[in-house]
């Protein structure tokens, strides 16, 4: 793919498109937006493939981040437009909050985790892995100190690592 091989790109699409589409759905919640975001994301992946450096990280991680960022940009743009429409800049944040509160996490992955993780860690996982929030945004959103978010994120990773059997 890095050398402009479209066949390799198609294979990568087959391998990862469902997972990446799921990521888009988690953040954007509507099929149309998720579709647009996934297309935009894959075009970026194609465009930037020559810049991908395997010595610095894993391909799939790199791809997830490209797609996530595309979704988050779209999400923010949409919220901004809506808030402009109602002429109230100050509602951007609360709109974001209201929107994210309504997200229903109903994926198998998270359900299976309920026995493993404390509720407070599941909440962190939701924000960091499903909604695409940064640690700071998560802290702001949940009204928690950043340090608490960091600690919970680390505990969650430790548990997830065991859960996924990553050694």
């Amino acid at each position, binding site marked *: 793919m*890095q*050398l*402009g091989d*479209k066949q390799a*790109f*198609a294979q990568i*699409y*087959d391998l990862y*498109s*469902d*997972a*990446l*589409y*799921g*990521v888009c*759905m*988690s953040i954007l919640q509507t*099929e149309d937006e998720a*579709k647009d975001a*996934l*297309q935009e994301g*894959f*075009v970026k992946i*194609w*465009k*930037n*493939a*020559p*810049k991908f450096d395997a*010595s*610095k*990280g*894993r391909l*799939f*991680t790199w791809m*997830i*981040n490209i797609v*996530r*960022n595309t979704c988050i940009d779209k999400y923010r743009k949409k919220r901004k437009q809506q808030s402009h429409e109602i002429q109230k800049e100050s509602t951007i944040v609360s709109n974001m909050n209201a929107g994210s509160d309504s997200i229903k996490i109903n*994926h*198998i*992955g*998270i359900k299976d985790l309920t026995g493993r993780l404390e509720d407070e860690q599941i909440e962190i*996982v939701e924000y*960091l*892995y*499903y909604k695409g929030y*940064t*640690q*700071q945004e998560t802290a702001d959103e949940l009204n928690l100190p950043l340090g608490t978010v*960091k600690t919970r*994120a*680390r505990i969650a*990773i430790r548990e*997830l*690592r065991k859960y*996924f059997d*990553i050694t």
Partner: protein
Amino acid sequence: MNIEEYIASGIIERYVHGDVSPQEKQEVECMSHIYPEIKDELDMISMVFEKMAEAQRQPAPSSLKADILSAIDSVDQESTLSIVKESDDKRNQLVTKENNTNRNNWLRIAAVALLLISAGLTALLLSQSGEDNADELAETKKEYRERMDALSKELQDLKSQNDTYLAELELNKAELDILSDPQLNVTRMKGTDLDPSALASMYINPEKKSAYIDTRSLNKLDPEKSYQLWAIVDGKPVDMGILDIAFEQASALLNVDFIENAQAFAITIEPSGGSENPTLEQMIVLGEV
């Protein structure tokens, strides 16, 4: 450097989640190159990140694949062409250019790496200064400084190694200039009974009135002895002087006096400082012109 603390700071999670500044990004990449523990942690956290994405899997709309494949038809990959072209050019340079350019290149790469590391560490120091207490900070600083010192020393070593290579290269080039002159006459001087394996070569350029001798195969002498070169002109030995051979050097082409009408050349082993007349039983090589 306290790797556990670095990992516990959560910067690697933030890196994997794309939640870092460009400076922090560079720093994590740098640190994971230096410390295998950090690289392992980075891989582990990436795998969790990937598994979590897989857990969200939903079938993408089937029409999307064709849309995307046709969309990329009209999109050029960023700088692919220039990258390929550049590496081709570089390969050509390797073939055509002098070796010293290559050596300078990797030296330059080492210097840049060192700079990046130092920038990364400085950034790390700055970013941590708010969080850590003074003792830990001092200790971390000390460890970084030691690491920096080690790297600086390494760079110094590389530099001096490079200088050595360059000097050798210059010598070799000069030798090549001498030896590739079409006017050059070569006289092979073969070992005598004293040492049949000994060998020397005289290179005489009558046009330029210059003479060189290659003594590479001669053994090192005790300090109280010297090699002395003689020319035989009209049947008589003419003193061409003591050969000041630098045995440690890669190059062994010595500049000697030019002499006309020599029928033969010989080297004898004489007491240190040389003799007025050759000690024939100590003649080690002899060659007729």
